[in-house]
């Protein structure tokens, strides 16, 4: 392609350095935010004012910041749940269903200990909380094992299966907390029962204890993929299933393993938000919104190029954007669902920018014709 005196060509990149990838990712976010800024304009709001309001509430305001952090941890966990199968070349878009499964299992444990009944004596947190977490992990892993097993054994399309399980999980929770279901909270408001104070998740340094757990998990995943044999096998399978098969890497076990791993992490996300975040401690009526929020895990996973540590700042950013967006949309008369619009536009911008991870634009001054 010729532009004036210059010839513009595309060259395939051989390898993307960390710095290049970060620059591309940041550029993608900026462009995405700018595009959503157009939506602000259309609603009669100055984009700069809008974003300033969003960021100040999300990160500076003393009520907004903890909410942001809680959301960010949720997103980080969903991102990790997405990343593990992503390294194996598989798509886990079922974080919603997996977190629903984990939530049901965790609250099931609490129920088994009589948490719903106000007459029950104070429960011992040292026993119930770890068991609830275990429940969340197993519940999520169980849901995750379905697409994993089917993929490994039958090569079933995991995108459709995980999506179906999202819907199935959604309705299962509805069953549990509405219209006389076993988890129904008092008063029939269509939400789950509230956990008693004794089994509120402990707070650590002013935040929920799930925060350090999530960070440690991200670090653990990073280490696993960088240094361990298992991580090597997963990556090899993801890059070339046929070469991995040749090397003796199990075609059936890898999908099952990564989906169970992803599922258990998503289960933890459910435990985190519904059982650990102050002010919630139950399955709320709007639990579906969190299923929707889990899709941010996809964007975050893609933008961090599958690096769990790089995902941390991005998760924080997205947590702030969605939190601030929701808070501010009423105030600025932006129209409901600005966080959904953000999700959609950011995702497509990211997808468009995938192009730049693979190609460079090369400018060459053309030699003048003699």
């Amino acid at each position, binding site marked *: 392609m010729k532009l004036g005196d210059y010839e513009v060509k595309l060259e395939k990149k051989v390898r993307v350095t960390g710095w290049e990838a970060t620059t591309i990712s940041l550029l993608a976010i900026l462009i995405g935010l700018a595009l959503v800024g157009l939506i602000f304009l259309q609603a009669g709001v100055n984009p700069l004012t809008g974003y300033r309001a969003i960021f100040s509430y999300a990160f500076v305001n003393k009520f907004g910041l903890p909410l942001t952090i809680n959301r960010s941890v949720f997103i980080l966990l969903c991102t990790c749940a997405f990343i593990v199968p992503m390294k194996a070349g598989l798509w886990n878009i079922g974080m919603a269903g997996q977190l629903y499964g984990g939530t049901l299992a965790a609250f099931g444990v609490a129920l088994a200990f009589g948490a719903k009944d106000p007459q029950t004596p104070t429960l011992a947190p040292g026993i119930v909380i770890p068991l609830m977490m275990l429940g969340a992990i197993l519940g999520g892993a169980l849901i995750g094992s379905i697409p994993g097993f089917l993929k490994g054994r039958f090569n079933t399309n995991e995108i459709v299966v995980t999506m179906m399980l999202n819907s199935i999980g959604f309705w299962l929770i509805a069953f549990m907390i509405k219209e006389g279901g076993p988890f129904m909270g008092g008063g029939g408001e269509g939400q789950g029962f509230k956990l008693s104070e004794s089994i509120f998740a402990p707070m650590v340094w002013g935040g929920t204890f799930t925060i350090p757990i999530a960070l440690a998990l991200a670090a653990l995943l990073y280490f696993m993929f960088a240094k361990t044999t298992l991580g090597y096998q997963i990556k090899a399978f993801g890059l070339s299933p046929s070469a991995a098969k040749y090397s003796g890497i199990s075609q059936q076990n890898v999908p099952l393993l990564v989906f169970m791993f992803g599922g258990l992490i998503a289960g933890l996300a459910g435990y985190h938000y519904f059982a650990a975040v102050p002010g919630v401690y139950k399955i709320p009526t709007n639990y579906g919104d969190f299923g929707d929020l889990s899709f941010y895990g996809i964007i975050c996973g893609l933008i961090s190029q599958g690096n769990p540590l790089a995902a941390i700042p991005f998760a924080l950013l997205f947590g702030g954007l969605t939190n601030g967006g929701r808070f501010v949309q009423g105030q600025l008369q932006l129209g409901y669902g600005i966080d959904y619009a953000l999700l959609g536009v950011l995702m497509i911008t990211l997808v468009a920018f995938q192009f730049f991870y*693979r190609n460079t634009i090369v400018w060459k001054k053309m030699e003048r014709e003699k």
Partner: protein
Amino acid sequence: MWEFAARSLNASTVFTIAALGELIGQRSGILNVGIEGVMLFGATVGFIVAKTTGSYLLGCLAAIAIGGLIAALHGFFSITLGGDQVVNGMGIWILGFGLTAYIGYPYTGPLGLERIPGLLGLSPFFFLAIGLVVLTWWMFSKTSLGLRIRSAGENPSVTEVSGINVTRTRYLSVVASGMLMGLGGAIYSLSYNPVWSINFLLGWGFIALALVFFSMWNPFILFGGSILFGTLWQLSLNPQLVLPNVLSRYIWRTVPFVITIAVLVLMSTKWFSSRWGAAKPQALGLPREEE
């Protein structure tokens, strides 16, 4: 009982038309997993236009246009930029999911127009769907255009070397597929269930994707599959017709999704998978190789 059957067939219409769109795109080699996104655009834009203008026709036309446009975007990412088609499809889906939630929210609620007159309770779109199924079959088996599309999906480099512009053929297929998906979405929001709410397609786009795989790219099998799923969907909403008072209605809502998974597992059996492998367009979802 007949009403149940009619509603089922009307539901199936949405599946048929949207899945036919994806079938055409896939036969040219382009995989779009974001059918749900395209359908959401068609459904939402069609709904908004119909509501504000009071015209079903304008709503449908708007849906067809936006569907073609969004699919063209997918085509641009996948054909011209040569990106991973699954990533692109995911992008289209999330874009649709996110953006339509925002633009549609002010229109939450019923459409408020007089229902389109039907025949015996069957919407006119059902007959349109039958026509489209036959037309698609005829195009692929009898025309040169069909041969070109099929060849582009089997082996683009052979097709190119035979003198056919594969890029143009694929764009054509993808835009046509988007137009059909948009129309499918509009049929949902204007005819089958004319009430807008966030994410009101409830995963139908993914079921349509499964349907295309299940149909082994044969329009007639696809039509049969759509009828099956339309019926299952109606059943999940009205379980009292089959098994009254058994299981909460929420459990029944999961039925279509469970059956979809079951169908996919069925597709992995020996009988199915060898035929499926043979029927599959060999270049489906693959990037164009450098010559």
